[in-house]
């Protein structure tokens, strides 16, 4: 980028917040998706809301592609920039502006880290449920832009369900306001809904109003061991059919169980076909009642063993195994592709057996775990991207998984986003009119195409 332009950016955010050296730019060329990195031409770090707006406007004036980046932890390439583009970092805009316990909402800047926010909310006696796997580093704006999910989706919903309102910059750097701090609000179009999961393609978040809820007073966790996959999935269906909605209802296949056991020696049954990890929460009396029901349902579906955590330490142990799943799998091979094709939960048995045969067909190792309660599985491909032939088979595997999920009435992505990774598959799930319609919206709002080009729809 030429010196005059760099000076202009410097005048907006200050010289120390403009990064031009290649070694700095290279570190913003990737995210957690397994995709080719792209080195941006400039990286800026606005420290005020005003300067963020000015950066958007300037990029629009100069027709420079703009990619906004939080932690860069997304799994679909949503923060991989364009080569001639600008990356704007949000991590200097990281203030929690308000946590209102009376009206149960919070207002945050885009770069607030999810886990830090959740613990600040907890310290005030309230609860922010969305807990994506990357919450220790991910930012709230990133979560909103991707509509991030997590383990508690089944009962508590996903990020979308907690966004009450937003301020965002349009391409001219003008502030657009949508939603409100009130429970009810029908003022104007539901732009909040449009902006959620828009992956930085329709505007740049400035402030976010989030809904908070009272924390559950009691929790109970248990692990159930199954000899067949069918028993495990029928248990999942059975629990829901009995109108028990666990906060988390997680699943691990045999391959993942063995990987976790090999890694952490937690005493998991390595010969089990599947494990279900279940947590019910709420009023103590309700929790006890639900836990008994869940236990009975597990037993009716031939669970070999049911372990209920007696206290917090045992509860932590139950979830340690689940938290170790990705790490344990990741340690087996250099390249890890974490997929998130999602199916209606009744289709989980079909999906799991399909994944097994796809894995055999392409000779690609897959460990599957995930959110059984909401049908959001994580088939995790273990491969080595440096081996061209194997990588080709891995890509074919991914495509087959997508096709199968769609065939079963599911979706391409439950929570990781479309980004670059799944952009080419979008039409398979929708229609050509959907793409055209989306493209029209995008062109109307961003005529020069500067907002995170290449993501969702190309």
């Amino acid at each position: 980028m030429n010196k005059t332009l760099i000076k202009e950016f410097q005048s907006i955010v200050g010289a120390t917040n403009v990064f031009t050296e290649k070694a700095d730019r290279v570190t913003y060329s990737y995210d957690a998706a397994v995709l080719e990195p792209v080195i941006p031409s400039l990286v800026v770090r606005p420290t005020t809301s005003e300067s963020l707006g000015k950066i958007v406007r300037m990029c629009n004036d100069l027709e420079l592609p703009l990619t906004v980046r939080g932690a860069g932890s997304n799994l679909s390439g949503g923060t991989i920039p364009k080569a001639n583009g600008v990356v704007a970092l949000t991590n200097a805009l990281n203030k929690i502006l308000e946590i209102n316990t009376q009206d149960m909402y919070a207002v945050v800047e885009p770069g607030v880290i999810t886990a830090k926010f959740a613990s600040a909310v907890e310290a005030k006696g309230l609860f922010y449920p969305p807990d994506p796997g990357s919450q220790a580093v991910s930012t709230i704006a990133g979560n909103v832009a991707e509509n991030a999910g997590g383990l508690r989706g089944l009962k508590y919903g996903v990020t979308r369900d907690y966004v009450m309102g937003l301020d965002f910059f349009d391409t001219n750097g003008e502030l657009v306001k949508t939603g409100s701090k009130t429970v009810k609000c029908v003022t104007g179009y539901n732009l909040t809904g449009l902006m959620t999961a828009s992956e930085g393609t329709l505007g740049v978040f400035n402030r976010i109003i989030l809904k908070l809820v009272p924390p559950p007073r009691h929790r109970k966790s248990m692990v159930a061991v199954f000899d067949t996959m069918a028993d495990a999935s029928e248990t999942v269906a059975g629990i829901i059919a009995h109108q028990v909605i666990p906060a988390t209802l997680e699943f691990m296949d045999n391959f993942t169980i063995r990987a976790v056991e090999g890694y952490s020696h937690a005493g998991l049954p390595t010969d089990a076909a599947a494990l279900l990890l279940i947590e019910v929460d709420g009023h103590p009396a309700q929790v006890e009642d639900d836990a008994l029901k869940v236990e009975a349902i597990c037993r009716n579906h031939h669970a070999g063993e049911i372990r209920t955590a007696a206290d917090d330490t045992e509860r932590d142990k139950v979830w340690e195994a689940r938290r170790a799943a990705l790490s344990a799998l990741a340690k087996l091979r250099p390249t890890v592709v974490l997929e998130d094709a999602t199916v209606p939960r009744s289709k989980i048995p079909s999906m799991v057996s399909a994944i097994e045969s796809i894995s055999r067909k392409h000779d690609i190792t897959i460990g599957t775990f995930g959110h059984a309660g909401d049908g959001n599985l994580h088939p995790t491909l273990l491969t080595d991207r440096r081996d061209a032939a194997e990588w080709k088979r891995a890509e074919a595997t991914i495509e087959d998984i997508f096709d199968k999920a769609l065939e079963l009435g599911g979706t391409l992505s439950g929570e990781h986003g479309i980004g670059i990774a799944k952009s080419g598959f979008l039409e398979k799930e929708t229609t050509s009119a959907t793409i055209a319609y989306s493209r029209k919206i995008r062109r109307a709002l961003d005529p020069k195409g500067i907002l995170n080009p290449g993501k969702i729809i190309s």
Partner: protein
Amino acid sequence: MNRIKELATLMRELDDSLAVCMRCGMCQSVCPLFSETGLESDVARGKLALLDGLMKKLFTHPEEVNKRLNKCLLCGSCTANCPSGVNVTDIFLKARAILTGFMGLSPAKKIILRGMLAHPKLFDRAMEWGAGFQKFFTKPVNDMLGTSCTRFASPLGDRHIKSLAPTPFHKIVPEINTAPGAAGIKVAFFTGCLVDKIFPQIGKAVLDVLDHYGAGVQITGDEACCGIPALSSGDTVTFNKLVCHNLALYDPDEIDYLVTACATCTSTIKKFWPLMADTGSPALQKKMERLTEKTLDINQFVVSKLGLKHADTVEPDQTHTVTYHDPCHLKKSLGVSAEPRQLIQANPDYRFVEMSESDRCCGMGGSFNLFYYGLSSAIGQRKRDDIAATKASVLTTGCPACMLQISDMLSKAGDSVMVRHPIEIYAEFLKKYDTDTKTHKTKTGCRPGI
């Protein structure tokens, strides 16, 4: 361009270990440097991407990468918490060696490492000379901490430094070689530069404890530095020289254990000698392996090999409140965190309180403190605040380098907190226990539940 190709070829050695990083970014949540700067080039994922870039001939100026690679505390927080198990510290040390070999050592580092550190006798004499003259250049600022600051503008900036000891440990205890006594164990004590030159009282405490148990002790009086300053500067020439010098001092057949009271020395000998040292002969490599297997941190050694003593009938005095900082090189590198606490808690005169985030890096990072003092202090300030919040009158830690950093931070804040090593607290207890045996019943063994 040919040079870049050559460098890329050298970097290929790291290909397999670099491929393990899945770019998840979780290292951002534990990196003490990233939490200050928020820059991706400061966190492991960014640096690994840069090394990957070197390998793929992305850079025409490797200095850009080298500069960023060196801006790291080598605390190992990322390694200890990496979901996919990337050995970040090992990769960085190897990369520093490759880059230094390729680009050469800076003139200043050359003088310090090759001109001074590589010559143990010369280094000792220079420091003794310095100890005699330091009072002309520095003035005391905190009696409790024993810190001073410089009288004039100097390269030390506004640091509150610990003075060089008037008499280094190797002058107090020149050479020892005693046969095993009651304990039936022979121990070589590797003093380490900082214990020798700044904290000889730690060396004294180690000897007192070993004597108390009746362990045979070997102190060679001719040690060189463990090599970490050279290694972290990528200077493998000096590193290998220092390892070879030290190897010649010990016979693994003659000793049961080699102990140090310095977290960094222990972790360097145990982890980085086998990883990085090239002694030039298979026999020496074998000897090195055997010696490193026998190397233990003093806290771990006392608890696991000698057995903790405690006096159950002594009335707890608890006049002091003590807290403990986990050195990165003990907890994250060697997994030692319970043992130093056990040593401290054995002494009934001290009431133990945990500080918040006791295993957060203090920001020292060896040469990191020299080159990035501002950042080092910002990280250290958090540690200081956590210590102050405990209201403890004594801070203990198992690493003399952390002791330097924490003394600087506490001194600048005007705190009256003593900085000590757990072995000093334990030695103090044993001394009292010795006299108490006349009037009190005591028993030996590990106290359960702590």
